[in-house]
């Protein structure tokens, strides 16, 4: 029973790791890396869903009758694009944050903000 699910579990393990990085780490770039890992593991999960035993890549060719499920592939293609878009935007934000705060650590930024608040 467990063997049949191991693939999902690996994906879940990866998700947890990525998620942990996102929540627990203070460095903004690292957060984004974590986010990427998180998303990639979700992709792995999706693709695992679409696997058919003894199936072949979903490109029609003669003499092959079993194909793996193309739909998850399509979804993940879209999702990968979304992921890279998010990453790019996030990085741009990080750059701007670095420029205006001078640092990219979560707690430092919060400290700076508090100082700001007290001044005003």
């Amino acid at each position, binding site marked *: 029973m467990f063997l049949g699910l191991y693939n999902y579990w690996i994906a879940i393990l990866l998700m947890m790791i*990525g*998620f942990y990085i996102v929540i627990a780490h203070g460095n903004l770039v690292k957060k*984004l890396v974590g986010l990427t890992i998180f998303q990639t593991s979700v992709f*792995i999960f999706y693709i695992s869903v679409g*696997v058919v035993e003894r199936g072949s*890549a979903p490109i029609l060719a003669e003499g092959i009758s*079993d194909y*793996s499920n193309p739909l998850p592939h399509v979804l993940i293609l879209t999702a990968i694009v979304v992921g*890279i878009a998010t990453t*790019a935007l996030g990085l741009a934000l990080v750059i701007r944050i670095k420029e205006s705060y001078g640092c990219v650590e979560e707690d430092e930024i919060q400290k700076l903000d508090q100082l700001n608040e007290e001044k005003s």
Partner: protein
Amino acid sequence: MVIAIAIVRTRNLLAVVMLSGIYGLLSACFFVVVDAVDVAFTEASVGAGISGLLMLAAITITGRKEAPKRHKPFLALFVVLVTGGMLIYGTMDMPYFGAADAPVHQHVAPRYINESMQEVGVPNIVTAVLGSYRAFDTLGEVAVIFTAGIGVLSLLTLPRRRKKTSSDEATEEQMHERHMVVRIVSKALIPFILLFALYVQFHGDFGPGGGFQAGVIFAAGIILYTMLFGLDTAQKVFNPSIIQLLAAVGLLLYASVGVVSMINGANFLDYNVLADDPIDGQHIGILIIELGVGITVASVMLSIFFNFDARRQAIQNSNKQKGEQDVSRTL
């Protein structure tokens, strides 16, 4: 595959990026193993290529050491464990990995596999679904990329003040000197890369590939050029504002296919009416939208990269002319 743990532990951000690049490659290998060639294609070019490059560019700006202190790991760990526990609990009733009788393989997918050849006439089922059955998703995807492009632009555009300082010139020269071998090899490679991108673009119907992958590869080729020959040289060839316009054109091209089919009396993005023969129509439709996707992706990626790089240069310059002017907040 548990390289990710290493990423958690490593604090040197550059190493983290390398590791995440490897992670991307590895997951791409996994995708190949499980027959998802198209996805592998994309993941390889994105996970290991573009996103790595962007992160590198960002890191050079933001600095690469992570502060040692970590906060509230217990709470985070708790949340993560709960999430993971939930997920594992959820897997209990899942159909087994690779089981052919799972509902996923029973309901919608068979139609794609069995009939897409008659209905769309494209051997690559993924392309068929992407370009025709679920074309609206793809339109959304292009819009997402476009949004990201605009977003990055709106965040990072520098006011136009490109006058090259002499020190700038000097460093460039020095760098060119140093990278002689690589430059020559790359010069030979770049046309090949661009050609390959075009091949991927138009071969997407028959093999893995398509607009998105082609766009990324195309952009990667030009990025290579930029990295070796300097941003200014590259921007002379590829004018940034034209690139931005191209991004818009790509999206418009895609959407206008839909509009044309609407004018022809069918539903939005229904390619059957684009030509007399429905299959031909589908071919034309998919070709054009893939082209749209490719153009948008390539130009957005490029403009994102250009902006990152311009920022980097600006910062370097301002570091050199210490304190003369603060580039970052003159916006």
